[in-house]
């Protein structure tokens, strides 16, 4: 009895340990100093949606925004910014480089709207979460006497996201971040299907959000 309990405990520990994601963050900044952000200024996070086969999903953008909100950083919701500046940040028209951004900001109506919204920094997020590999099999059956699932399935997920910070006042790039998060999820069918899911995407979101938060330092108006 004791041995079976020990085995069960060991198996659970192995599986739970296997359910943690491996996350790597690469960071590039021209200077080591944190980016100064006035307490009245806001940041907007925008997802790249011009690629053909994937979209940086809105759920991920708002997740990173939520992670950044602590520490007095004010984040403007993505859709609010895109609507206010319509149609200049749609997938077809959004600037892909600083040159195009400079041309866009030469338009006084666009510049005025950016100033009205108090947007100082724009963070582009580009990436997706994909299932790389899957294995195992699971079969479920139901009959008059009851039903159940038996088998084992596993799948690997990879989240790769890149963040680029643009300064809308200087019209320069302030830094880049890249996060890679990988992990394996399991589904064990022992009458009832028992999932052991690795939160790959939420790990990538938390890592990116926290790292981006560290990019900025909020200065009060009195400090300036």
């Amino acid at each position, binding site marked *: 009895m004791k041995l079976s309990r020990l085995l069960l405990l060991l198996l659970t520990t192995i599986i739970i340990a296997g359910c943690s994601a491996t996350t790597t963050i690469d960071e590039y900044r021209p200077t080591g100093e944190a980016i100064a952000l006035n307490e009245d200024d806001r940041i907007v996070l925008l997802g790249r949606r011009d690629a053909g086969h994937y979209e940086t999903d809105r759920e991920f953008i708002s997740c990173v925004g939520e992670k950044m909100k602590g520490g007095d950083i004010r984040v403007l919701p993505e859709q609010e910014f895109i609507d206010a500046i319509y*149609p200049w940040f749609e997938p077809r028209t959004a600037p892909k480089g600083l040159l195009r951004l400079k041309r866009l900001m030469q338009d006084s109506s666009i510049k005025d709207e950016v100033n009205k919204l108090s947007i100082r920094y724009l963070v582009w997020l580009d990436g997706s979460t994909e299932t790389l590999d899957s294995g195992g099999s699971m079969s479920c059956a139901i009959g008059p006497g009851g039903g159940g699932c038996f088998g084992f399935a596993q799948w690997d997920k990879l989240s790769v996201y890149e963040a680029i910070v643009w300064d809308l006042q200087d019209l320069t790039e302030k830094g880049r971040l890249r996060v890679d998060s990988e992990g394996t999820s399991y589904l064990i069918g022992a009458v009832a299907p028992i999932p052991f899911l690795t939160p790959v995407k939420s790990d990538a979101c938390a890592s990116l959000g926290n790292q981006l938060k560290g990019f900025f330092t909020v200065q009060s108006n009195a400090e300036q």
Partner: protein
Amino acid sequence: MFTIKMKMFATVLSLIVLSGCSSSASVQLTNDFPQVLAKPKPLSAAIVFEPSFSNYVARPNEKTEIDIGSAQVRLLRNAFAGLFSNLEFVASREEITLDRALVIIPSIREVQVSVPSDNYLNVFEVWIKYNLDLETTDGDPIDSWFMPAYGKTPDAFMASKSAAIGEAAIIALRDAGAKLMLDFYRIPTVNNWAIEERRKARQANIREVSP
């Protein structure tokens, strides 16, 4: 009593799951579109939204229906307001009252839809192919401009097909607005017409000022 409740719950759950798996989609677009951020040119235009356009229901395949008419009218009203300072929206050519205006008659050539089972990607896609017939108020044709618009939305687990196609259609409509703002005055014939109209307006001003 408990058994009856459980059965009812199971029936409702099954119905929800089955409706989620339904392969047909009927979409009605009821959302509003933002105002465009642009300075309109001091030119006049009459936009003719014929009933076949403003009540358009797209049927890209036998399982999909998108009621796009009123949404595209709302979008184009906003978009043209960013292009022309003097606008008139009418339901037929006979109702135009403006002089020396560019008459624009939009129509839809085709609407196409692609779902993950078609494209093997995790996206729903919608293409709307517009045609803008451009004429003078006297009825002389200026040009016929083909304007394709595209929208896509990611596939989400257990999300309904109708909602995903609706979202992709809204993105396609917004793309049509963006395309219009970006490229309309780049059409050579429209650019020439705009230059000519401004020249005529300048001449008229000179005539008014001179004794």
